[in-house]
Every structure is written in structure tokens, then in C-alpha cells.
């Protein structure tokens, strides 16, 4: 057959070749392409007996794409396994077949079976067949390029999605309540981001108690082989957290976790850690704010209770002071005139500070003023007040209390000391007396224990000093106390002209001892001189 004739005959097929390529290149997969190819070939060669096979590598077995009499057709192909691109035919030329190599080195094997009219395939048919196979290869190349492009776009979109998801997860973790919800959200996000099949978040507290969260729920993570796992852990305040992911998925089955997965899991774990730390910081800030407000209220209560000015007592000079160590004092002091003209001098010390101490001081002040108005003996009053304080306070709260009721006319003083530092009395002859009479501190026991009062007389020139333990126990940076001995010596030696001078002097002396160290306890004192 002359080349002119071949050219002439093939020219009739040009349009058909163009249309066929358009159809084939619109395929989304090799399976779809093979179905299109079947239609193209059957239209061109008037046969439905078409088989199409594909294998990724020469030594692999054929995958069937189109199956018509495939066993017989496979036998035909096996005969020409080493004759790539050659168009072979059966002895009567009613069947033609070939194996061709595609652009990615994979192979296709095609068999065109008998035609409807039974006519043999001609040389022109064989050339046309070869051209169609070339079209298939070109369309296959286009398909591979399209798939590669799609894969790249998918991968880029997936990276962007992972970044967004990481940011959103961080925000959501910071809002979610602490506990299993936090771990569940973090775990499910880590699993989705890394394409893990399943996983576990574990929390082990300092006592070894284990709490597990699984995704999906109720899976057996221990059953997964170690090479299919990825884990990350951290410890926060003695609590150990671990995230373990298992069996990374792909469309072709299980694959190993990679460096990106490790980075993603690490980022999620850090977000969880940050959320836990932030939550703790927020709680602490809230507690501090609550404490601050509580102290403000306590300070306000105390301001209303503690005296602004002490009463002027004819024939006497009196001064007092209260220096709280931290904002609100746990000490109480007061000097006030009773309706019978006597003067009550009180110093008390409540255990603890802040609102609970302040409320207890308030109770003490109210009950004290009420009972003093009844003019009952101090020992009886002390029993009643102890009962009230016991009922108003918790087990760890009690009050040391000292009251001295002075009759200004004759200098007689009634004293009750309930577990407080002894009052000091300086006689004219410069001898010091310690007044310890009384009982246990208020609020410790409610067994009706008696309080023993003491009577004494303050003559002209004699001095009374009532104080709280903040003075003898004031500490310097070497944790050395001012001591009772030093206080007593100072009391005896420092005979100032006025009560104010003495108070200022003792405070100065204490500060000289502490040398600028932060005041460890409240300082409270009353100093009385009979002129």
C-alpha cells in the first residue's frame, strides 16, 4: 500500500482522532479513561470485543481495566510480552493486539477482538490502532499532570488548613474548662491533623492515679505496634500528661508518622500546657483579687472599731498605738469610758488575719461593750464572752484578751487576762510587777472554765503597760526576737514624762532592733501614767 493511500485513508480519521483525544483527556482516572477508550475503539473498529490491561511495572501482573474474553486475550498478550509497541495479529487477522509502554513506564495491553462483520483488520487499521494508542498515552500523560497538580493543590490547602486548625485549637483550648474536655479536644484535633487512626490522652497525678481519654472512644491503644505510634508528654506541677497517636493513615494503607506530625503533636501539647498554666494564673489572679477586696472590707470594719482618739482622763496620761503588719491588723485595742465613769482599757490578739479575724474582732467589740454596760464582774463577763467567741469562731481561731477597768478617782484597777501577754506595772519604787491572772484565751474551750480576776491600785507616778506579742516577738533579719526581757528592761528604764513619748520610744526601739526588716506581726500597746 502506497504512502499516499495511507495518508489519504488516515486523513478521514483526523477529526475522529481530535475528538477522541478530547474525550480521553477529560478522564479523572485510568478506569474512566479506559471506558472512554473502549467507546472510541469500538466506534472506529466496529468491535465490542475489546480488552484493556494495565500494569505499573513490567514484572507485575496485569490489572484488568476492560474485560472481554480476558483469559484468551491475556494469552495473546503474553505471547508478545517482549515486543513492545508492535501491533500483532491472529493468524486470520481477525484480532489485533499490542503491549505499549506509557509515559510513566507503566504498560498497557490492548486486544481488539473480532469485528461485527467478521472482516480481518487491515494494515491501515493497524496504523490507526497505533495512533489511538499514542492518543491514549498522551491523554494518560495529561491525566498524570492533572493528578499531580491536584495533589499539589490538595497538599498546599491541607497545610493551610493545618495552620488554621492549630491557631483555632489554641484559642478553643484557652476557653474550654479544664479536665477531660480539654484533653478530648486536643486529642481529636491532633488525630485529625496527623491523619492518625486513633489515640489516647493520659493524665497521671502525683499519686499515680491514671485518667485516660480515647479517640475514638473505647479503643485499645496497647494493641497498636510501637512503630505505628507517636507520642508527646509534659509535666505540670507533678501531673504528667501524655498524648499518644496510632496508625497514620494514607489512601494506600498505613504509613509511618513523619517529622511534620511530630511538630504538629508537639504544638498541640504545648497549647494544652499553656492553657493549663494560664488557667492556674487566672485562678491565682482571681484569688488575689478576692483577697484584696476582702482585706479592704476588713480594713474598713477595723477602721470603725479601733479608736481614733483616746479619752482624756483627769489625773492620768494615756496613749495607745496599733501598727498592722500587713494591711489589716489581727490585734484589737480600745479605751473607753463606762457609764459609771470608769475607764476600760483593752488589748486583744486574734489568731489569723484578714476578713475572718476582722469579723471576730467585730464580735468581740460588740459583746464587750454590751457586757460592760451590765456592770457584772469581769470574771463573769469573761466566761460569757468566751462562750460567744467559741460559738462565733472556727476551731483554729481564738483571741487572747486583756482588760483593765480603771476607777480614775482612786486608781483601782480590775484586770482579767485571758491568755494574753501579761500587763506590766511599774511601781514608784521602780519595781516591776507582771499581771498574769486570768484564764485561757477566748474561743479555745467552752467548758465553763473560770477566769480569775485581779485587783490592784495605781498610785501617783505609777505606770501600766498593756501590749500584744508583736513587740517582744518582733524579729530582725537573723530571726532574733526583741524578747520579753528587753521589753521589760525598756519599760523599767524608760520613764518618760508623757505616755505618747513612751509609745513612740518603744516603737523606735523595736524598729532599731528589726533594722528595716518587714514587720512580722501587729504591734499594739496602751501606756497609762497616773500623774
Amino acid at each position, binding site marked *: 500500500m502506497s504512502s499516499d493511500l495511507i495518508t489519504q485513508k488516515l486523513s478521514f480519521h483526523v477529526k475522529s482522532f481530535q475528538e477522541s483525544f478530547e474525550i480521553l483527556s477529560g478522564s479523572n482516572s485510568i478506569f474512566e479513561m479506559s471506558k472512554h477508550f473502549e467507546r472510541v475503539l469500538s466506534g472506529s473498529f466496529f468491535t465490542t470485543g475489546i480488552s484493556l490491561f494495565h500494569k505499573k511495572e513490567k514484572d507485575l501482573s496485569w490489572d484488568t481495566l476492560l474485560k472481554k474474553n480476558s483469559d484468551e486475550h491475556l494469552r495473546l498478550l503474553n505471547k508478545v510480552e517482549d515486543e513492545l509497541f508492535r501491533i500483532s495479529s491472529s493468524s486470520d487477522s481477525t484480532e489485533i493486539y499490542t503491549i505499549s509502554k506509557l509515559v510513566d513506564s507503566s504498560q498497557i495491553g490492548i486486544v481488539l477482538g473480532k469485528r461485527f462483520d467478521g472482516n480481518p483488520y487491515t494494515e491501515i487499521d493497524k496504523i490507526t490502532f497505533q495512533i489511538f494508542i499514542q492518543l491514549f498515552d498522551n491523554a494518560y500523560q495529561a491525566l498524570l499532570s492533572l493528578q499531580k497538580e491536584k495533589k499539589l493543590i490538595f497538599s498546599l490547602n491541607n497545610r493551610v488548613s493545618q495552620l*488554621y486548625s492549630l491557631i483555632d485549637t489554641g484559642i478553643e483550648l484557652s476557653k474550654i474548662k479544664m479536665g477531660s474536655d480539654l484533653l478530648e479536644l486536643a486529642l481529636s484535633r491532633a488525630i*485529625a491533623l496527623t491523619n*492518625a*487512626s*486513633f489515640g489516647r490522652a493520659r493524665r497521671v497525678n502525683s499519686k499515680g492515679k491514671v485518667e485516660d481519654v480515647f*479517640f475514638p472512644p473505647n*479503643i485499645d491503644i496497647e494493641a497498636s505496634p510501637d512503630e505505628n505510634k507517636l507520642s508527646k508528654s509534659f509535666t505540670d506541677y507533678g501531673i504528667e500528661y501524655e498524648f499518644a497517636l496510632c496508625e497514620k*493513615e494514607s*489512601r494506600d494503607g498505613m504509613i509511618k508518622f513523619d517529622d511534620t506530625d511530630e511538630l504538629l503533636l508537639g504544638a498541640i501539647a504545648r497549647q494544652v500546657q499553656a492553657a493549663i498554666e494560664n488557667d492556674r494564673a487566672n485562678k491565682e489572679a482571681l484569688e488575689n483579687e478576692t483577697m484584696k477586696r476582702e482585706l479592704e472590707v476588713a480594713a474598713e470594719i477595723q477602721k470603725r472599731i479601733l479608736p481614733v482618739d483616746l479619752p482624756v482622763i483627769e489625773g492620768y496620761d494615756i496613749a495607745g498605738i496599733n501598727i498592722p503588719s500587713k494591711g489589716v491588723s489581727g490585734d484589737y485595742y480600745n479605751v473607753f469610758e463606762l457609764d459609771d465613769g470608769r475607764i476600760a482599757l483593752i488589748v486583744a490578739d486574734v489568731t489569723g488575719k484578714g476578713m475572718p479575724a476582722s469579723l471576730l474582732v467585730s464580735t468581740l467589740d460588740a459583746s464587750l461593750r454590751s457586757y460592760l454596760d451590765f456592770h457584772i464582774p469581769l470574771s463573769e463577763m469573761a466566761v460569757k464572752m468566751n462562750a460567744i467567741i467559741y460559738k462565733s469562731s472556727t476551731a483554729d481561731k481564738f483571741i487572747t484578751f486583756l482588760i483593765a477597768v480603771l476607777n480614775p478617782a482612786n486608781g483601782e484597777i480590775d484586770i482579767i487576762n485571758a491568755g494574753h501577754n501579761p500587763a506590766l506595772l511599774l511601781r514608784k519604787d521602780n519595781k516591776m510587777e507582771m499581771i498574769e491572772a486570768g484564764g485561757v484565751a477566748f474561743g479555745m474551750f467552752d467548758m465553763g472554765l473560770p477566769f480569775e480576776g485581779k485587783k490592784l491600785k495605781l498610785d501617783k507616778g505609777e505606770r501600766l503597760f498593756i501590749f500584744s506579742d508583736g513587740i517582744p516577738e518582733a524579729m530582725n533579719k537573723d530571726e532574733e526576737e526583741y524578747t520579753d526581757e528587753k521589753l521589760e528592761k525598756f519599760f523599767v528604764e524608760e520613764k518618760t514624762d508623757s505616755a505618747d513619748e513612751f509609745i513612740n520610744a518603744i516603737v523606735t526601739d523595736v524598729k532599731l532592733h528589726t533594722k528595716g526588716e518587714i514587720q512580722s506581726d501587729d504591734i499594739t500597746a496602751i501606756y497609762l501614767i497616773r500623774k
Partner: protein
Amino acid sequence: MIKDFELTSNMVNDVLVMKTEGYINNAGGEKIAQEFDKHYSSGITKVLIDIEKSNVVNSIGISFLIEVIEKLNHKGGKLYFSNLDPSIEKTFTIMGLFQFADKVSSVEEIK
């Protein structure tokens, strides 16, 4: 591979409605694709996937959904999603699913 995924489907007029429950991963995505293929050959062009009970989807699961979208797009059809979790909706948007698929609140919204 863990299979924590359930799929139910039914026809509402000419719309194939699939409801998923659980992790849409390789296994879940494959199940969706298989169910879709069963109906695709019979000419279905509208598919609604209700993912109210799925709040975790990975990229393998998404690749199956993209295949469904492509097949429907090829026939002039469309995939619809309903009851999307906000984080999944964001992921689908970034992955470009809504260039060819739509969000609806119910099957009645599909014309």
C-alpha cells in the same frame, strides 16, 4: 485500622441523603464513596451529606469527598453538606470543597 464510623442513606425525592456518624477518615471516606458509587451508576446527580454526628475529619476523608464532588461535577450534579461543625466548615472552605459543593440547612432546600 479503627473503624468508628456509621453511615445511613435514603432517597428523598431525587436526592441521595447520607448521614454520617463518627470519624471521617480513610475507612469513613471509603464508606461514603462506596455508598455514593452504588447510586452514581444509576444516574444520581444530587447528594446531601449530613455530618451532624461527625465532628472530626482528616485529610484522607476529605480526599474521598473531593472525589465524590468531582464525579458529580462531571455529570453536572452537586454535593451538598448540612449540619457542619464550625471547625469542619472552616476546613472544608480552606480545602476548596465549597467551590463545587454547597451548604444547606435541610434536604428541602435542594432544588
